[in-house]
């Protein structure tokens, strides 16, 4: 059987077995992309809705945090190293890309280790790594920080805006704005965390969750498993990469360097214990402490509904700015910038009849 045949069979099973009006949330931005790129919405039963969750790292970064990134980039002694996704995201008044064009030293790197190497090669520069992302990226940042320390590099620091995935899911269920019948749980994050951290979804809220891979067949199989659950439980569809206990080595690394902290999420506000701050032992490498800057109050872009999109309350296409004032060429909100953003995915891969 070809993959296309298998996909059609899964779609037929879904249509036959799904109750009407089910809403599932795909937590991870890579799921959002995969669903849009392969046009999977076309295959879903009538009435089944997939809403995007808070799993796009750039999208959930608070404007105030972006303002701090830009402020650090403007310091003459600072080289700001960042993943490419971040540089076009609008802060209150500017973007890192605009700052770079105006002369700030902003460099796109592909891993935090590249930033450590810049610090080694250019000892006269203060290299600040803008750390965003979830449990997937945090261990690699931790490893880079340890590497910089082992190499005696005192000019490397991290602005930690890292976040963890379970707390916002809890926050969403507490808010209760959208009836979520189940979660497509993030594949990459779960490779690190394992599944124990999601058990509360089924136990405390009666909501099912299936950890899904990113191929179209993974997504459809995971949806079918959600539909078939008779009692809410946490399952793994992405068994070729995810173990229930996760990656223990990476977890230890993360715990060695980071401690849970409160974090500000775009759309959700401050969620207690949802961030990862550098532990006091690593305070010397904390860019927020090393470079204290005065920030003006953050400005949310007028009319932008990224916050509601990130909570699954508003469909990207229902935002008045979508596709008109806000496009990937000229984005208003972060969800239209990041390649994993719900708005960008919906716009770029919209159906031919939309």
């Amino acid at each position: 059987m070809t993959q296309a045949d298998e996909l059609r069979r899964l779609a037929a099973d879904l249509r036959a077995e799904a109750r009407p009006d089910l809403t599932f949330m795909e937590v991870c931005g890579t799921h959002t992309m995969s669903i849009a790129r392969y046009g999977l919405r076309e295959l879903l039963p009538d009435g089944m809705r997939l809403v995007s969750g808070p799993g796009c790292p750039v999208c959930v970064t608070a404007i105030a945090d972006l303002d701090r990134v830009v402020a650090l980039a403007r310091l003459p002694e600072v080289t700001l190293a960042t993943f490419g996704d971040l540089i076009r995201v609008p802060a209150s008044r500017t973007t890192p890309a605009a700052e770079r064009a105006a002369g700030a030293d902003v460099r796109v790197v592909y891993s935090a280790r590249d930033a450590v190497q810049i610090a080694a090669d250019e000892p006269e520069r203060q290299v600040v790594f803008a750390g965003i992302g979830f449990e997937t990226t945090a261990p690699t940042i931790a490893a880079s920080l340890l590497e910089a320390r082992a190499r005696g590099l005192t000019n490397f620091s991290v602005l930690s805006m890292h976040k963890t995935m379970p707390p916002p899911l809890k926050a969403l269920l507490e808010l209760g704005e959208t009836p979520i019948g189940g979660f497509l749980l993030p594949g990459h994050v779960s490779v690190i965390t394992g599944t124990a951290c999601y058990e509360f979804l089924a136990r405390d809220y009666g909501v099912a969750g299936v950890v899904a891979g990113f191929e179209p067949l993974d997504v459809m199989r995971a949806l079918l498993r959600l539909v078939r659950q008779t009692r809410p439980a946490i399952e793994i569809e992405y068994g070729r990469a995810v173990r229930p206990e996760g990656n223990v080595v990476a977890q230890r690394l993360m715990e060695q360097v980071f401690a849970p902290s409160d974090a500000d999420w775009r759309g959700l506000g401050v969620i207690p214990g949802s961030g990862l701050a550098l532990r006091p032992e690593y305070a010397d490498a904390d860019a927020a402490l090393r470079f204290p800057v005065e920030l003006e109050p953050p400005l949310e872009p007028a009319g932008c509904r990224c916050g509601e999109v990130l909570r699954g309350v508003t469909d990207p296409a229902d935002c008045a700015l979508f596709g008109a004032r806000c496009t990937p060429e000229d984005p208003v909100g972060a969800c239209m910038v990041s390649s994993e953003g719900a708005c960008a995915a919906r716009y770029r891969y919209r159906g031919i009849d939309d």
Partner: protein
Amino acid sequence: MTDADRGAGGGRSGAATPSGGRILLGHGSGGKLYRDLVKDVFVKAFANPVLERLDDAAALAPEGRIAFTTDSHVVQPLRFAGGDIGRLSVAGTVNDLATAAARPLGLAAAFIIEEGFLLADLRELCASAAATAREAGVPIVTGDTKVVERGAADGLFITTTGVGEIVVAHELGAAAVRAGDAVILSGGIGEHAVAILAARGEFRFSADVRSDCAPLWGLVEAAVAAAREAGGSAAGPSAAGRPAAGRPAGAGQAAGGAEALHFLRDPTRGGLTTVLAELAEEAGLGIEIEEAAIPVSPAVRSVCDLLGYDPLTLANEGKMVLVVAPEAADAVVAAIQKTRYGRDARRIGCVSAAHPGRVALRTPFGTRRVLDMPVGELLPRIC
């Protein structure tokens, strides 16, 4: 001027010896050192009677309509698997001429060289440009050289300008495209971009991918001939109501079956997606593409999966997109497949009257989505 003086006495290798084998600012001065550089490097590499006259302008003798184009090349690194800036600078301009169905008659090459650039490297890159020009059957007939201070350019920039003679009588372009036309792609995509990424070393991956950088006049010439023959023997939409038989099929004939060929464009920066999206918009027609029909090598696909790139948006330097009348499509594909750079050519879709201005991609799973132009820099994904 002491360098120049010594250079003058140094005979054949005079330009190289006193400078330590490097380009000096004096090489751009217009004096003796400059003249030696031109003769020793460029005239030698591009050897042809027109260039050897060293006139400020070259005289060409075209017979038909003229195509005229220019392209600057600033690639880093200067060498990569499958090519270098020399080959690229010639192929790029030959291919731009080819998109107008123009046989290249002559190229001009302007070199902007950073002070300190190695003469040995310049010779090697010129030899590569010369070999590519020979392959394309076009002489480099004139040129210019400027040397800029260290730091003012990144090694070597080459601008090539080309003049070509258009071999079809009808207008090619989006306006000539009709609903029902076949869309043909000359081979696998993404190879140039991936070869450059690998050569830059930023991602620390090694990929068994060579740039497709190649001059495509031969391929286009074969397509024009096949379209002429196929269109001449079968009555296409352009010939509707007129007898197809008995029409002369030779080069330079007005009308003729070559009218089956409607559009040519090379998918360089922005990739296949950009060419198709622009065509749909300019023609005011829809395009249907079968994703499974687009050749993508396993190596290119792996790199794209790893870094989050879409092969359809990656740059190519040796591919052509052709739009032809449906009755000529098979013959054109077969003709291209017989050429050196077209072995993997195939029909990838068709033009339609539905959804004007939009390109629909049918995925291997049978679902459809819009193909949109990529935006800004290509960025890697982060999680």
